[in-house]
């Protein structure tokens, strides 16, 4: 099976080839993770800046002035355009750079070769390129915060004509150009990575690793990569057409526009076309973000409950069903665009179908806990938390999917609450869980569990503290992306929630320092890890603690059973690694 014949770690590598232009999937995974943590810190800080304005509108905060300067926060009051730029870049970074690039990039790279028993990715070079495109795209996105006019400000969905016309708002100038360029590079990174993941999983599985013996992480990452490869190219075309509208005088998305005293020479385009193209990526994107987190939590919950994941095949089926359905639901973002109402009803139908595989997953998680023997590692805490956020946030999706109800809550805080809980919190919990769980594999050391618990509980409480009350703000009719709500009499009764939400956001944001400290401290000073600290079945724990190029010093391991033989009554130990041959008379699962 090994398409690669490396001499296993015997040759000395230079600093540059080992740490910078590395082809090794384990190093690339760490590069993705550290970059994503940095981007995450920026995004959280931006959110705290705009939460200060929302919590205490018009109040002066010296700290805003210190960070943003006199142009964006004169006297410590956030500027209106800067507010929109923060909201936009917060969303963009979180969705694409942290939860897509960061989450998939880190765990697909780390886990795919290790869990399927491969020496490395199918193409190490493409994999390296994937990271470098990601890094350059991250840097361009960050640089857009420093240009004249500020970063892109039309919301992370950048609907034209607002985003197409530099005269429509300051953020639609250079900032938007950089946003678009960054996104094209990001998609290149994502495609290079995604193709590699698919090819590796399909071709490089070790002997005995049938598709039905793969851990659910790999299934989730496979479907994620397929979604990405099929939908990201549509985003590129969507973005390229927008670039042409901005620079070459085309009118794909523009028609009949009079702005800043001028009737523009553009007719025949449609702004709604952009939305169709954007959401054709945008909705699968939600699952590109969510599925890896669900895969990771499946693995962590099974391992720490010391039980097989309940309904392994149903879990695979529901991942596939969610993946398929995610391509035919994009119109539910567009019920109030003036789209034909009949098309709206089709999307109501397809969207609500997703509730079924999602329910299957939720109940399967809960049944896995039932009669388990649960060890609450920090990773397990985050995974149980994920099930709660997945259910809690998923349920409000039922309301948003219903076009008749969406009319009144569309683009309100209800939506903000919904997707932050179901996608934001769930995915970030999956990511944290994954880091705590596989840190020993990545760095050969353990993270501090006490700090992990503190980090988890603060994040859980503050996360819900921020996003749960937003349901009520939204349902009272508060539009999102407003700079100030104080002049709306009908909203006064819910506006006392805003300072509370902001307090939770600040505390929750500060709590992430615990994680960052723990992460970097443990890289150098953490307790040295043993080979299989969590007593897990999967192949990555059969590799040596010290990384070697090619992963296994000798021959590749051979797989004899599925990944979930925990507490198998036919065995003494409560776990049976996949490399253990079946006993005589034992039935394979």
């Amino acid at each position, binding site marked *: 099976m090994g398409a690669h014949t490396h001499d296993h770690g015997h040759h000395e590598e230079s600093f540059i080839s080992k740490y910078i232009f590395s082809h090794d999937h384990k190093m690339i995974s760490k590069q993705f993770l550290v970059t994503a943590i940095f981007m995450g810190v920026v995004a959280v800080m931006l959110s705290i800046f705009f939460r200060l304005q929302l919590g205490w509108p018009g109040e002066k905060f*010296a700290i805003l002035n210190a960070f943003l300067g006199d142009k964006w926060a004169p006297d410590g009051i956030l500027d209106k355009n800067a507010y929109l730029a923060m909201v936009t870049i917060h969303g963009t970074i979180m969705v694409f750079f942290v939860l897509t690039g960061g989450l998939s990039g880190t765990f697909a790279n780390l886990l795919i070769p290790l869990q399927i028993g491969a020496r490395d990715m199918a193409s190490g070079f493409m994999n390296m390129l994937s990271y470098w495109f990601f890094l350059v795209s991250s840097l361009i996105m960050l640089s857009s915060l420093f240009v004249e006019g500020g970063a892109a400000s039309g919301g992370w969905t950048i609907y034209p004509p607002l985003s197409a016309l530099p005269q429509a708002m300051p953020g639609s100038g250079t900032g938007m150009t950089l946003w678009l360029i960054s996104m094209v590079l990001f998609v290149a990174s994502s495609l290079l990575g995604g193709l590699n993941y698919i090819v590796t999983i399909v071709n490089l599985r070790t002997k005995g690793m049938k598709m039905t013996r793969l851990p659910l992480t790999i299934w989730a990452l496979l479907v994620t990569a397929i979604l990405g490869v099929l939908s990201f190219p549509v985003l590129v075309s969507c973005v390229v057409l927008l670039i042409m509208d901005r620079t070459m005088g085309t009118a794909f998305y523009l028609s009949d526009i*009079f702005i800043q005293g001028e009737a523009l*020479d553009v007719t025949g385009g449609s702004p709604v076309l952009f939305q169709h193209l954007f959401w054709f990526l945008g909705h699968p994107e939600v699952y590109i973000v969510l599925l890896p987190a669900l895969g990771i939590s499946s693995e962590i919950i099974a391992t720490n409950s010391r039980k097989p994941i309940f309904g392994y095949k149903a879990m695979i089926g529901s991942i596939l069903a969610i993946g398929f359905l995610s391509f035919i639901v994009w119109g539910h973002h567009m019920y109030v665009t003036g789209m034909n109402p009949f098309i709206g009803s089709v999307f109501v139908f397809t969207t609500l179908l997703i509730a*079924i595989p999602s329910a299957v997953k939720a109940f399967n998680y809960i049944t896995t806990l039932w009669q388990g*023997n649960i060890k*609450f590692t920090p990773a397990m805490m985050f995974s149980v938390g994920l099930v709660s956020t997945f259910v809690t946030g998923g349920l409000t999706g039922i309301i948003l999917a219903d076009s008749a*109800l969406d009319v009144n809550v569309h683009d309100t805080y209800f939506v903000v609450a919904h997707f932050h809980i179901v996608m934001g919190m769930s995915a970030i919990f999956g990511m944290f869980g994954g880091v705590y769980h596989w840190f020993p594999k990545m760095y050969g050391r353990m993270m501090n569990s006490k700090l992990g618990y503190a980090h988890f509980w603060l994040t859980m409480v503050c996360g819900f503290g921020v996003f749960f009350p937003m349901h009520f703000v939204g349902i009272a009719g508060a539009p999102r992306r407003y700079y100030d709500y104080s002049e709306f*009499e009908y909203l006064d009764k819910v506006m006392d929630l805003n300072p509370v939400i902001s307090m939770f956001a600040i505390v929750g944001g500060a709590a992430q320092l615990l994680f960052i400290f723990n992460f970097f401290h443990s890289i150098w000073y953490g307790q040295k890890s043993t080979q299989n600290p969590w007593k897990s079945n999967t192949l990555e724990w059969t590799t040596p603690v010290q990384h070697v190029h090619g992963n296994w010093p000798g021959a590749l391991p051979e797989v004899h059973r599925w990944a979930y033989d925990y507490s198998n009554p036919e065995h003494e130990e409560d776990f049976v690694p996949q490399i253990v041959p079946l006993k005589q008379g034992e039935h394979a699962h």
Partner: protein
Amino acid sequence: MNLFILLVVVLAIIAIAQLTKVYDLSRTLRNSREEEISAADNRLNANAWLVWMFVFFGSVIYLYAKYGDYLPDSASEHGVAVDKLMSLNIWLITVVFFIVNYLLFTFASKYRFNPNRKAKFFAHDNRLEMIWTLVPGITMAFIIVYGLITWNSMTGPASSEAMQIELYSKQFDWTARYPGENKVFGACDFNLIGTSNALGMVTEEGVAAKIAEIDHNIEATEKAIADGIAKGTMPDSYKESLEDQLYKLKRHKQRIMDLKENEMNGVSQWKAGSDDKIVKGEFHIPVGQEIEFVFRSQDVIHSAYMPHFRAQMNTVPGMPTRFKMKPTITTAEMRQKLGNDKFDYILLCNKVCGAAHFNMKMTVIVDSPEDYKAWLAEQKTFGGEPAKKQEETKTEGSDTTMVVASIK
């Protein structure tokens, strides 16, 4: 203040670092492994799940109690049906929320690690899985059917009794237009928009005036180019920009020349606008009358959101959109109902459209039919009072520049 915050952060980090050090040392002394979760830790976290559950459920119930009556009863006919569907959905998801989270947290708490016990090897059960596929499936079928019935009645074609009102959006305000006696809106075209014609109404005089204005500009630009060439000092870049401008002006003129005069209900659309009524700031609608809103946008996408009527529709440049509704409660009645003399229905923008997006609103007044008639009669027609109209639009024009200036 900044220094103080910085100090607190630095001290906190040092404190955590020191505590971690102490912890690491004691762990080495005890010779314990990080991955071996102690019984005490496990118990603590298991119990914490229960505590969390009570806190979480308690807060959720508190929020429902305090903020659950989110908006006053719907003031539109379809809104009543929407609210009914909404309540049903909220009840349903709230029940599922409590059940599923209860199971999750209690299981997590109850089945904590015990070295003397082995977990139950329970890999799958077709009957159970069938249950939690079918039950959500059936529930969803019900929600889909009920939802679509409501949706279809909301979005079906407007009846013949419906009266039309146009809502026109631009950065950052709304304009309402009533079709007047002839019930036909005058034609509009973005090429004719100007300081004296904010909606771009098409009239014979308007077209002629606009063409004359453009011709004048073309002449001036041509003259500037010719002069520049004659003098020989004009930089190429300036000449090119003038030529660009000339090209644009000619295209603009061409687009206006292409406009065709069409007839609707036997009235020419170029003439139909003379009795149209254009209002800003607030607009009135009669109670009990079906209204079909027609939305247009001048510059970017906006969204017309009227939360009290459960109504929302995007306004898209180049693509008119529609939404019909029948208001059922007058403003006066609603004020009485809420015991609030200052209450007003509101139309706001709900699609981010620029810096002053949060301030783009218009008051909606629902009148009794008599009051509505009286109010409408007071409004000037487009054709009738052009002088007055011009003055109004001018002040608004300067308002917009002020907003633009202030946000810059």
